[in-house]
């Protein structure tokens, strides 16, 4: 009898506050009830259930008007069973009794259809997790009208300046619960707000983006002003010669490059010999000014304090003064490599093992303005685009600059520059860092969010120039 009452209440609540993430998110108790039903339905040796709910809304604008405006609500119940040392996963987005029964059975059928896995470990029992607070009620309560009004202000700013704005404003909330038959229970919820804007002129563009668990930390007007000013500054871009340049990479550009290193810190990647750190741990690969952590608990980070198996995340020193020191490990990889699990494993079963997703760079003390001021001739880069790996061991990446590329001469920005293609080893780049700004939470398009500084880098390899 409880379920129908809850549905009616939920529907009425939506009528009062339509299109708001907070109205859709189930309580932790509701997630627990689903998990308990799954665990009861299973006759496997061991069972794990991972429930995830996302309520996201995204307002998209271009040509100074909203052209797409969406919201979606989705719930998944993912079940992993173990039968005689064999494991597999099945997932559904239905929570009725028959669907839960079917997903449990499907997981079991898959598990029993394969050879025994000699490396499969018993599921972990109950764990203790450090607290993180990343749920903001105001963000969960943001409405389509809130986002639309902010977009309209940005569109007006662009129109007044004779510019064109395009971008997104998204808000949302998610909740998850991981439980297994050995008594482990881990729950997490968080909110998310993100604004990204590109301001276009006939021959130039500028870009700015920010995200945070709290909407109050995202300022669309300030971001639009910044993007607009970049578009103005980069008018009539000059075609400059490719070759090695001193570059000043804003945090988003740094993030998109160094993000390609993340999987190289996986124990599995080194074990498989596909990491650029294979045979190089403990060796000096980067400059003295490069120290890198994985730290899910950093105040500017987000994400769960536990991994795909429910193991508590550890703070790991990955690189210390240019020397890669440590890797991250799932439970199985740790056993294989005689190390301790660090709480970075992916959901099982998988062939990739683990990875750090909460990268935090130690920053420096120079501002971007000071880096520009100290540069005789160089390129200031706002953002990068379409980055792909060319050489996995030397970690050579290719990609383009985009939406705000500037020529710096005599300590000042003197002109916009046509966009460059680069072919650059990230390891070499991190050996050639001349200055760092304080680290900030940054977000780009090619990698996940992290806490990174802006960097001034010598000898950055631009190989070609495009036509705009």
């Amino acid at each position: 009898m409880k379920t129908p009452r809850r549905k009616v209440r939920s529907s009425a609540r939506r009528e009062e506050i339509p299109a708001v993430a907070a109205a859709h998110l189930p309580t932790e108790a509701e997630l627990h009830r689903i998990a308990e039903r799954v665990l009861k339905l299973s006759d496997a040796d061991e069972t794990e259930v991972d429930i995830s709910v996302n309520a996201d809304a995204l307002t998209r604008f271009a040509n100074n008007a909203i052209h797409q405006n969406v919201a979606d609500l989705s719930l998944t119940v993912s079940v992993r069973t173990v039968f005689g040392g064999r494991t597999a996963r099945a997932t559904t987005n239905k929570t009725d009794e028959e669907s839960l029964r079917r997903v449990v059975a499907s997981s079991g059928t898959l598990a029993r259809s394969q050879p025994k896995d000699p490396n499969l470990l018993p599921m972990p029992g109950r764990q203790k997790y450090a607290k993180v607070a990343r749920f903001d009620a105001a963000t969960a309560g943001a409405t389509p009208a809130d986002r639309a009004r902010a977009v309209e202000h940005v569109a007006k700013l662009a129109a007044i300046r004779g510019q064109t704005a395009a971008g997104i404003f998204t808000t949302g909330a998610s909740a998850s619960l991981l439980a297994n038959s050995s008594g482990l229970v881990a729950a997490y919820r968080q909110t998310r707000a993100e604004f990204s804007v590109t301001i276009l002129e006939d021959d130039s563009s500028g870009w700015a983006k920010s995200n945070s668990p709290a909407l109050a930390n995202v300022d669309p007007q300030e971001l639009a002003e910044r993007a607009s000013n970049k578009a103005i500054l980069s008018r009539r871009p000059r075609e400059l010669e490719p070759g090695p340049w001193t570059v000043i990479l804003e945090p988003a550009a740094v993030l998109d490059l160094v993000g390609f290193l993340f999987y190289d810190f996986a124990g599995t990647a080194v074990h498989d010999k596909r990491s650029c750190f294979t045979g190089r741990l403990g060796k000096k690969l980067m400059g003295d000014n490069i120290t890198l952590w994985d730290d899910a608990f950093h105040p500017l980070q987000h994400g769960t304090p536990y991994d795909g198996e429910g193991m508590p995340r550890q703070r790991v020193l990955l690189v210390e003064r240019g020397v890669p020191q440590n890797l991250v490990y799932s439970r199985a990889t740790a056993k294989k490599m005689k190390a301790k699990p660090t709480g970075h494993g992916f959901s099982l079963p998988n062939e990739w093992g683990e990875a750090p997703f909460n990268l935090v760079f130690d920053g420096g003390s120079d501002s971007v303005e000071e880096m520009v001021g100290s540069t005789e001739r160089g390129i200031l880069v706002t953002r990068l685009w379409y980055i792909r790996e060319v050489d996995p061991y030397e970690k050579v990446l290719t990609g383009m600059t985009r939406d705000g590329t500037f020529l710096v001469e005599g300590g000042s920005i003197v002109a916009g520059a046509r966009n460059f293609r680069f072919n650059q080893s990230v390891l070499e780049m991190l050996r050639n860092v001349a200055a760092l700004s304080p680290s900030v939470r940054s977000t780009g398009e090619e990698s996940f969010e992290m806490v990174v500084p802006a960097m001034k880098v010598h000898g950055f390899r631009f190989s070609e120039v495009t036509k705009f």
Partner: protein
Amino acid sequence: MLDVATTAIETAKLRGASYADARVMDIRSRELSTKNGQVGSLSESESLGIGIRVLVRGAWGFAATDRLTREGIQACAAEAVAIAKASGLAKRADVEMVPEPAHVDTWQNPFVKDPFRISIESQLALLLAADREMSRVKGVTIAETSMLFRRIDQLFVSSIGSVIHQVKMQSGAGIVATSFAGTEIQKRSYPNSFGGQHQLAGYELVESLDLVGNAQRVAEEAVALHKAAQSPEGTKTIILESSQLGLQIHESVGHPIELDRVLGMEANFAGMSFLTLDKLGKLRYGSDIVNVVADARLEHGPGLGTFGYDDEGVPAQCTDVIKAGLFTGYLSNRETAPAIGLKRSGGTMRTESWNRLPMIRMTNISLLPGTWTFDDLIADTDDAILMETNRSWSIDDRRYQFQFSTEIGWEIKGGKKTRMLKNPSYSGITTEFWNSCDAICSREHWTLWGTPNCGKGQPMQTMGTGHGASPARFRNIKIGAAFSKA
């Protein structure tokens, strides 16, 4: 499904929508993979839900839910209308769409063997056999195999009276051998990199690939690459095999012809296009022998871009994109078609899932076959590099300047394929590249490749696209920049 969709449309209309459409989609998938003789991942998933798109006072709203009770659907439709009303707060003009008649139809792609009825044991046995063949080769450090199957059962209903039921079955599989030695990681994939070959087909596709029969060769080539000569730097003739050419078409033809991109709708993320509207019917995109179509019809082949109707209820069509080298057509939808003077949509609206808004996507963007046999093409080539299987790809946000590298290269000297080359790469400007094409192989060498992972949109959607191509030759191409030490 019909009750659910009809409830959505009725609710939207009652709440003020001048137009509404709904997609109920039931998606089932199965993924299997192995690594070094062990099962890597083994999973199945199912996802059922509805996406409701509404037009209210000339502005769009979209909402999606997996709560398919009557009240869940009504709340979702009401939410879509509320969102559309909010869109009106930042509107410059009312959305208008070209007409489309109502269609009531069912469509299913043909396939022989339902991959979900093939036992997991036999699918794993095939992958593990291929894995074993690769692992046997000395010097291979990682042997990996994978299969992916999807069944999409979808119902489209719109307020103009369309009711379209479609079932699409997709299959794909591939293998890859990786070898680490010294300071180099080399790899070879079959039949294509990044997941292999994928088509709108049943398990018969997997059986036709002969993964086991190709495993040893692939592994030996991965190891041999370490001792191969470095591909040179400079300007040279290149011959691209068909899978690499398929990706070249995807990046330098398929994306720039998306009309939403041209009109600035993707400016913040995927970017814009050099193909501004003034270039239609005027730009010399390629040489006279270059003919490209966007063809979603079944007669084009079982591509990942093949369907009966797009996700806006428009029947599959074939559009000439490049005809005898001249740029002749964009990918359009009902909203953008008027911008290029079309009275009807080109039928390219596609969505990843029930919870995503349809947008203009590639269908099957294919280079039509030429006249050459592959042997004749090699014999006719004095000095070139044959490049096979994509390794990296990148192109600027207006689709002008690109750079690709491939897993392996072969030197062509005096009309013969000679030694193996490692780390080949090439780069250029889109229109210059396609204008340098002077030979395309014939239909017997033509393959309709599947790209299962094309990303576009915010929130990001992953879509499968098809690209037919046969090997082709390009003159005076810049090579080697990716691995230049200069």
